[in-house]
């Protein structure tokens, strides 16, 4: 039996317009990615062409620049900085955010709405506006130009997300489970550790990865908080510093290294993130 063609009939002219539009959209989105990848695997001859037009694909694609990158001590130093800061941010954010999310999600607290608004208020301002008071405050409390300062700033930025996603995760656990544990003799702490926390893990994992990514590619706060203090530069700051000084293939390779975790993690937890974000925001 012939299958029914559900597509609407389209004239040839319309079809051309649609396809052209589609290609344009793909070009705009994928263009920079293409350039990035292309430059990172280009040989020198494909970059310094001596007046010739730059080829669409390198003459001799090579991974040599990546090999070089991983022998470069400066690169090592900043990528380790980035990892330290990101992981510490995740740890600190979860440490502060999970209990807060539990309390806000499971208890009737007076002024709950005001507290939630206060928590999210950091994100209501553009980063560039909130960075100045934060820097001033951090200078006063003595964490300016330190790892901890950057970690603290990133924690500040990611806490609202972790709290909101975490609240959603805790709220979605039926109250019966908690009360059943109490009746069986578990105190509140045991109930949290053995029942609520394990059940909230999928949501909290999404929040943790979100936090990692936020910290990993954050620029503005890291920049202002570590001005002139190169030892604590993250990958983004390093890239910013060398953007005019180094050859294009090196810059592109660093950019790829910066983007890769973002892409991989985003694809991995895409489903959780959507579920987590919506369960936190929509009640």
């Amino acid at each position, binding site marked *: 039996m012939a299958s029914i063609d559900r597509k609407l009939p389209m004239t040839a002219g319309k079809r051309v317009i649609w396809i052209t539009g589609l290609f344009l959209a793909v070009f705009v989105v994928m263009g920079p990615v293409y350039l990035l990848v292309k430059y990172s695997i280009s040989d020198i001859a494909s970059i310094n062409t001596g007046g010739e037009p730059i080829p669409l694909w390198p003459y001799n694609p090579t991974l040599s620049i990546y090999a070089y990158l991983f022998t470069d001590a400066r690169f090592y130093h900043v990528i380790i900085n980035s990892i330290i800061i990101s992981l510490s941010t995740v740890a600190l954010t979860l440490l502060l955010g999970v209990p807060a999310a539990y309390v806000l999600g499971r208890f009737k607290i007076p002024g709950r709405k005001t507290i939630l608004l206060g928590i999210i208020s950091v994100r209501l301002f553009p980063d560039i506006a909130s960075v100045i008071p934060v820097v001033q405050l951090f200078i006063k409390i003595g964490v300016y130009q330190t790892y901890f300062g950057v970690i603290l700033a990133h924690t500040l930025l990611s806490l609202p997300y972790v709290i909101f996603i975490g609240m959603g995760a805790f709220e979605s656990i039926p109250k019966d489970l908690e009360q059943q544990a*109490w009746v069986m003799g578990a105190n509140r702490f*045991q109930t949290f550790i053995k029942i609520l926390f394990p059940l909230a893990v999928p949501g909290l994992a999404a929040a943790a990865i979100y936090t990692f990514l936020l910290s990993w590619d954050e620029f503005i706060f890291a920049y202002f908080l570590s001005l002139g203090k190169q030892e604590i530069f993250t990958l983004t700051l390093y890239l910013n510093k060398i953007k005019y000084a180094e050859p294009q293939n090196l810059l592109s390779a660093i950019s790829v290294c910066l983007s890769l975790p973002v892409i991989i993690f985003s694809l991995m937890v895409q489903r959780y993130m959507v579920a987590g974000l919506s369960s936190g925001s929509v009640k």
Partner: protein
Amino acid sequence: MADVVLKSFTKKYGSFTAIENLSLEINDGEFVSLLGPSGCGKTTLLRMIAGLETIDGGELYIGGKFYNNMPSQKRKIAMVFQSYALFPHMSVRKNILFGLKINKVPQAEMSRKLNWVVNLLHLGGLEERFPREISGGQRQRVALARALVLDPDVLLLDEPLSNLDAALRETAIEELKRIHRQVGTTIIYVTHNQVEAMSMSERIALMNVGHVEQFEKPRMIYDKPKTVFSGEFIGSPPMNFYNGEFHIDDVSTGIMTSVGFLKLDAERASKIRELHGRKVVVGVRPQHVYFKGHHARRRHTDTDIELTVELIENLGDRSLVVGKNKNGTILRFLVTRDDELHIEDKMSVFADGRKIHLFDPSTRLNIFD
């Protein structure tokens, strides 16, 4: 094992009083049902006993100990929630052992108890499964097992059978009765289903808007409803109710109602000679109205009620007939399926004078109580 004593319990939600001045004494090892329509406070009462709701007034004693301020964790009780509340991230074994682990019971003791309860509730082979991997009936048994291994003084069950289909519910009722006989724990069972309450409990506390209407053996509630509500709620199909007036003279004693004159048996009639002319609420169960064909049951005191058949509902072995008299008053009664009846048939029935229930219209209490 222990007895449970509730003294003038009160529960308030803001200005709404959910439970008012409610007292109950449940014996050690007794199976008691809290039965009532939704919103009557039966689950609230159970949760107060469990310590999940505060006791706003009154006293709770379990096994003679004052329990009011005892946190749930310290109460020697176990509870099965309506939703079963199985921990979804734990296997059946871990679910069952959770309470024992929390209470730091030695390993040997734990495995002995696990074996015992797995045999008692036929859970063999399911120990490593997760709640999502077992059927509704199995979940219900796991929830019960998890409660029983704790050796509770009192076992609280909150509508544990309401999520099961009819056939499973039937088996579960038998199981519960068997387990109660074997374990002997005091059981407080909340339900809105009179069949469950009637078939399992030793006594039923019939509840209505925050108080106990009647607390007695199932049979007694059925045979001698203490209030109009008891009569209405217990029994299926429901009782017929009529407003009437006592008519007592030398010839006959009975009640004049819109459905007809309902004669009383001589024994009870002799007790209420002084009530002539007083208003009364009469309750007649459909089971106690007889079709004229049933001569064997006919007694000389009974008067005939002339009806036209309006509706016939087939109940399987019997049929429920809805009849209407010339005043338009409706009487529901049961006939056997051999009684050939058709809609619009004219017929004559009589109510058994010994079985009609009389209530005071103002106090709503049974006159003969």
